[in-house]
């Protein structure tokens, strides 16, 4: 049995890897091991074979949350860019109005854009605070 490892050295699949698993491993118990410094170590020394999967599952969820959060940040930024770009016509109009009337309506539009950036940043912070997949599923990356 040659398990697949992730970047942290944990087992993510019982097979399709390159390194032979520790002796006496089964398809189930191989998930308690981790590869560190070219050697197998018990990744869950405080857990027995019956309970280590709870710890493994929690760890796995944290990886998935981190992975998804990273993929959602560009979506938030793209939505912010779209909203900012959508105000281009207002800037053009305000620029012309201000030139004619010697006014400063452009500042109002710029304030709208600043608000979008602030909302985008706040949305990224809200995303960063999420720790569970359940909460992540409720998070709309373009909902700001």
């Amino acid at each position, binding site marked *: 049995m040659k398990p697949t490892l992730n970047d942290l050295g944990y087992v993510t699949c019982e097979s399709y890897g390159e390194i032979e698993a520790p002796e006496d491993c089964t398809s189930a118990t191989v998930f308690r091991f981790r590869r560190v410094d070219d050697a197998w170590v018990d990744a869950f020394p405080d857990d027995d074979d019956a309970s280590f999967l709870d710890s493994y599952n929690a760890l796995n969820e944290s990886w*998935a949350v981190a992975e998804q959060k990273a993929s959602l940040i560009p979506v938030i930024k793209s939505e912010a860019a779209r909203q900012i770009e959508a105000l281009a016509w207002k800037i053009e109009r305000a620029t012309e109005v201000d030139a004619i009337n010697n006014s400063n309506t452009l500042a109002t539009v710029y304030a709208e854009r600043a608000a979008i950036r602030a909302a985008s940043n706040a949305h990224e912070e809200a995303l960063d605070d999420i720790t569970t997949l359940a909460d992540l599923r409720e998070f709309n*990356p373009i909902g700001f």
Partner: protein
Amino acid sequence: MSNLTDFFGKASKRVAGKSPHGQPAFVAITTGSSSSPNMLTIFDHALNGIKVNKAITNDNPNYGTQFWQNGSWNYTGTPNANPAYMGGHGVANNGYLGNSSIGMANSDVSGTYNVRPPRHNYRYVGYSSRLVGANIGIQQNYAISTGLTGSGGIAFIRSCPRSVSRVIAGIANVGGTYGSTRDAVKVQTVGMMTAGNYVLMSGGFSYNQQSGNAVIIERDNASNDSLWRPVLIKNFPDPAKYVSDQTAWGAAITAVTSTASNRVVGVGQNSTNISSRGTQGRNDGKVILCDNNDVVMMHPWGTSGVRIERWRWNESNNNWDAAGTPTTYSWNTISFSTGEESGVNFTQSLDGKTAIMMIQGYYTSTGYRMTMVDVATGNVKSYMTNDSTHSYAFIPLGASGFLAHKSLNASSAGLRVELFSWDTMHTDPTVDYFSAGFQSGPWGFYDNFLDVGSTSTAYPAVVPITDVDNVAIVLAEKGEI
């Protein structure tokens, strides 16, 4: 006489086709990035690439990414992170009904530039794998719905077109209420299910086109630990002839069951550790009725496993022998514990001679447990892979084969697939491997076999295409057209 009479009786007259294997077999979906869009790559039943297309038609690939994440799958990330009620892009989502997530336009995802692939309402697609029955044979242009678990006069079946929406219609608050529930056959009313407080297994119906018999799986609803048992209905009215008329189907079934010899009640499943069967195991499962009346059943076990049971038909007794020792495999949490999630799925080869029952092995969509059934003999081969990161799919290819897919990183390596059939698995295709239990997956999923339109993806998905002339493909492989 045609050597296909075992399929058709008197062989159908067909004109020569141009290219039966040129029909689409599956689509590979590969994710985009900031520099390249999500791509679709379509392959035919000869494994030739047909077309490469953008999956999302918009100016910003990130919106495409967002669609997948909020809509149905997140295949830009680890598949086990998929929404719980979906079944992700693994075996639970890719079955006889095609891909549960892609089928019709219905989206709750906003986005100015999005032109999205059609798909089903995300809340309910998981139901489809649990609800679909197994209509075993070469006529594959229809499906059977069993409804959600129903007891007594509520339990129903429906013969319907082959789509997720038609299969899930009629369950609570989905697709209508009164109209859709009347658009069904109540299995107790028509004499299939035992009278009284009995419950029909959700997914517990199979019709065998070769024998013309059907089976339902029922149990006494008075106890959580009552045993599932098969009920055979001989001379069962062909569901394909009643797709648009459930009332007539029900009447025809009633006429059949009114003859006592047409209905055979089997013995219960093996009772070993039955108190550990769990909530989902006493509600859902899947069953295959073989040509010789053997019955093979898969259902969830506890919160982390599946169990395979089989009843061998004894012709001399006109009943099944006692269910043999079941094979059970448990490993880690599987998300089949709440109402909208997927369950045991099924698919079959285009010639209807090999059936597969399957479910994910970890949470919503990664890993797998699958059981192949030789429909002619009732022989069984079962395989599994424990995997917390990658999804798998098994898709009919050609007349008798399947394509196995693992969602490994496709960057510069193409799509990781392998081809297999009943005859290519294990060492002897004539041997039954039921008692061997679930064997660790035999496929290597090596690199550079099939190319894909985009090579930047980490977790590609494949989607079976179901609307094909499977009969033409079967005929073509026998030189008939």
